């Protein structure tokens, strides 16, 4: 273990990897600060730029973007009342109220310090859990993988904000889109309509950029492009003693909640921030004050989203299953670099696993430096008009998507998925299940077909092995729960009608 630890430090401290770590957390903070583009869009955008970079450098940078965005997201929530990132939505409630009371500094400071503490504790958890989990996963067969992926997708659809029915439809559509290209077993081309460029399937970059980047921009420009920054002088970033006394348990609770929700399939930073805020309000002696500028309302969700951001690497790196859509992009990035995430990753590429883990420590320290003394710079960036910002984001999307295969078809695919994503938002269809299902589709199909081959066509194989049985029981339980609660809702509405 100690030798791997040393190897990780050596890899992370290489000047080139330090540069990529800094670039990642800097871009992540920028993305988090700017409303209109999230870490998924930014990571998809920069994926082509990492092709000429070593795999470990690329993953260090991409990871930095993800956890950096969790730090930066709080800045806009506190100062502008617009969340820069979905996981910072809940921070608006108390963060903005604190800014209005002239306490923007302590709010920003507590968000950054809480994020640092939670992120660091979560990395220790990642180191402790990932290795034994990967060892256990070596005994997993196709039925276990299939059941785990089904569980991930169903949990994600269950946790989406809108209708689970629509989310399930999106997951099915994502799986279907994943079938485009050559069949891995028979080399038959499927749904390519004679287009040679589709033989390798629909690229992950145009799909993600369209669904998360272009659609987000279209949603933003349909409204007048003006936003107000609350004019307040940011002074005294360090919270006072009283703040520390009330926040220490909030940070710890947020860290624990975030860590476990980050590991769960379908969970992630967004869910963690909401749950930790709700729990903090419940355990508080003055729940009625939440929403009026209580500092625990900033500390808890910000700690939780950072802890979740780090712990969601556990299922990806140890099982090879991305638990959420951000990890799905990272999964795609690893595959593009010729690295198969999964239980063998830690053994066959220890420099990647340990290098990335160690870089997270360094990244967290860099983020603390970026977010406390340089807060003024981020506030100034917020003042750049959106009319100038959105063309730049779109241009990066266009260039990024073209440079993957030097193909104009990818540009058209991105526009198509952008329009689809825009309409999906309008009709309350979530893009996350589609994106995750699309990434999991080849693995899902392979493990299903292998399982059916092993069992001689019997679906009972998924119920005859303990791990897959537990997962399938959860899957069926969640679906039954959803159907019965829908039926109950219907019955309670009918008498009124």
């Amino acid at each position, binding site marked *: 273990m100690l030798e791997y630890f040393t190897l990780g430090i050596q890899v992370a401290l290489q000047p080139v990897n330090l540069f990529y770590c800094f670039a990642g957390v800097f871009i992540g903070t920028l993305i988090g600060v700017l409303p209109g583009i999230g870490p998924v869009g930014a990571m998809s955008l920069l994926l082509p*730029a990492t092709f*000429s970079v070593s795999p470990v450098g690329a993953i260090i940078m991409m990871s930095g973007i993800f956890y950096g965005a969790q730090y930066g997201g709080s800045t806009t929530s506190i100062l502008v009342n617009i969340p820069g990132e979905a996981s910072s939505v809940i921070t608006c409630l108390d963060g903005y109220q604190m800014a209005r009371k002239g306490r923007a500094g302590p709010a920003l400071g507590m968000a950054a310090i809480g994020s640092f503490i939670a992120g660091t504790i979560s990395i220790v958890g990642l180191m402790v859990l990932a290795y034994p989990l990967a060892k256990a996963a070596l005994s997993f067969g196709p039925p276990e993988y299939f059941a785990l992926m089904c569980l991930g997708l169903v949990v994600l659809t269950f946790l989406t904000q809108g209708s689970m*029915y*629509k989310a*399930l*439809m999106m997951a*099915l*559509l994502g*799986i*279907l889109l994943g*079938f485009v290209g050559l*069949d891995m*077993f*028979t080399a*038959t081309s*499927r*749904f390519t309509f004679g287009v040679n460029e589709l033989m390798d399937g629909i690229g992950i970059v145009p799909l993600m950029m369209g669904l998360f980047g*272009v659609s987000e*921009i*279209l949603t933003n*420009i*349909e*409204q*007048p*492009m003006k936003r107000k920054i609350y004019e307040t002088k940011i002074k005294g970033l360090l919270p006072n003693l009283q703040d520390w006394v009330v926040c220490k348990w909030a940070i710890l609770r947020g860290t624990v909640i975030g860590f476990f929700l980050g590991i769960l399939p379908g969970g992630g930073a967004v869910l963690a921030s909401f749950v930790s805020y709700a729990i903090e309000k419940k355990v508080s002696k003055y729940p009625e004050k939440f929403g009026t500028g209580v500092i625990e309302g900033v500390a808890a969700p910000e700690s939780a989203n950072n802890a979740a951001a780090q712990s969601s690497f556990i299922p990806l790196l140890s099982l090879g299953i991305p638990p959420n859509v951000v990890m799905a992009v990272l999964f795609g990035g690893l595959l593009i670099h010729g690295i198969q995430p999964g239980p063998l990753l830690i053994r066959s590429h220890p420099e990647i696993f340990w290098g990335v883990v160690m870089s997270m420590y360094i990244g967290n320290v860099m983020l603390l430096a970026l977010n406390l003394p340089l807060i003024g710079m981020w506030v100034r960036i917020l003042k750049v*008009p*959106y*009319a*100038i910002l*959105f*063309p*730049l984001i*779109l*241009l990066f999307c*266009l*260039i990024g998507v*073209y*440079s993957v295969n*030097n193909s*104009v078809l990818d*540009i*058209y695919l991105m*526009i198509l998925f*952008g*329009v689809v994503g*825009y309409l999906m938002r*309008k*009709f309350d269809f979530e893009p996350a299940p589609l994106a995750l299902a699309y990434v999991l589709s080849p693995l899902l*199909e392979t493990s*299903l*077909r292998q399982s*059916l*081959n092993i069992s*001689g*066509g019997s679906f009972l194989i998924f119920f005859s092995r303990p791990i897959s049985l537990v997962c399938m029981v959860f899957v069926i339980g969640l679906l039954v729960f959803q159907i019965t609660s829908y039926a109950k809702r219907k019955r309670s509405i009918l008498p009124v*009608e």
Partner: protein
Amino acid sequence: MGACILAYRLRLGSIHNPGAGLIPFGVAGLLGFMSIGLLLRGLFGSTVGSQREGMFQGVQWRGVTLTLCGLLGYGAAFPILGFRLSTFFLMLLFIGGVGRQKWWLTFTVSLFTVVCAYFIFVVWLGCPFPVGPFGI
């Protein structure tokens, strides 16, 4: 349903030995049934009309349409006009047309963006972008 037909043509095989089309057929079929369910719920639901009105209320279609036209136009012009010219025109359209900024700001930012993008992507990262007429 179209995906179902296409999947059926790919050879379904058997449950014991699934062909290339079996799982796509199942997924497309399930999606088709769920879509019909949603359609029926939409047709006979009571709140659909008001919901649909709310969805597009206050949408500034000019910006959305211009942006989409610009993106599609960029895809078409990129191989013909080359990276620099098509990017410059796209920026003019987005900043001036959609963002409605002053002409001098539009021109300056567009030019600056093209120069920066050229140095980052072509000179530094070595992306092989198409060159336009007269080598521009």
